[in-house]
């Protein structure tokens, strides 16, 4: 008798005719309930386009335990959602001293997740084409962090059209390249 994997460490697996879908629906609902955000209206994106605030020093300080709990819970969600890695990474940079605008941005991720709780990654079925092809995509953002002059880098890998590995990270080196 074969047993199909359906639930493992908060990750749920759904078997469809297109392939296997990995999602964290239950985890999301539990998380949003825990933070008492179930009544929010949902939004389509998880971050504002021009939300990069450089100066937040004069803003009100927030409870950092609450902030850490929030970021920690959302970070576990990055296991099944590639689009979250970037925002969660940015939010984690203020973990030691969260300000009001940081908490608002972090809560926005939760509100987004509430609306997008059904989304997951599909591992398509064997279609006999390009089965052995591993493709990497790399991108970087030059000097997005004005105060530290660090760049954010990201890469992802697709094997046989399925997303298998990804990373979004602040580069540990300061980029010097410039025309002058």
């Amino acid at each position, binding site marked *: 008798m074969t047993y199909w994997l359906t639930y493992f460490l908060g990750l749920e697996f759904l078997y469809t005719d297109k392939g296997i879908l990995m999602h964290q629906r239950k985890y999301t609902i539990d998380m949003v309930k825990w933070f008492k955000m179930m009544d929010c209206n949902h939004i389509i994106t998880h971050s504002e386009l021009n939300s990069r605030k450089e100066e937040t020093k004069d803003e009100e300080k927030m409870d950092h335990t609450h902030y850490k709990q929030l970021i920690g819970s959302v970070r576990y969600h990055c296991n099944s959602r590639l689009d979250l890695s970037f925002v969660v990474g940015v939010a984690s940079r203020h973990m030691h001293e969260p300000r009001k605008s940081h908490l608002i941005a972090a809560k926005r991720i939760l509100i987004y997740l509430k609306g997008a709780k059904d989304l997951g990654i599909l591992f398509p079925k064997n279609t006999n084409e390009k089965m052995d092809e591993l493709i*990497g995509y790399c991108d970087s953002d030059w000097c997005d962090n004005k105060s530290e002059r660090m760049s954010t880098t990201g*890469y992802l*890998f697709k094997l046989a059209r399925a997303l298998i590995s990804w990373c979004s990270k602040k580069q540990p080196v300061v980029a010097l390249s410039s025309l002058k």
Partner: protein
Amino acid sequence: MVFQEATSGGIVKLEVEYIVGTYASCQAIWLDFLLKEIKVEVKRPLYFMINNKFAINHAKNLVAHGRSKHIETRFHFLREQVKKRIIEVTHCPTQDQPANVLTKPVRVDRFLKTNGELGVLSCLD
């Protein structure tokens, strides 16, 4: 001068794109070993899509010119792998680059398009 101005954005990004290429190639080689261990044969060379032509040329041509002298030696790992034909770097236009969502906040249409390309689907469909 006009030419220089037009390409300045690209050349400024050379270093960061080149470095991310190196990080990604380390990950690619690790993935390759891992897949071999679970008996999945991956076709060589592995393809890398980078949206910066300067970085691609820099990885392919073994030259050191004034604009790249300061890049640390350890980041030339990518170049080594390209030389050994383990990795092949190709250009991919910015609008088709799915890795964009990992580095910057993107517009809604772009966000949804990338999600579609990467096989992010709803479990209710």
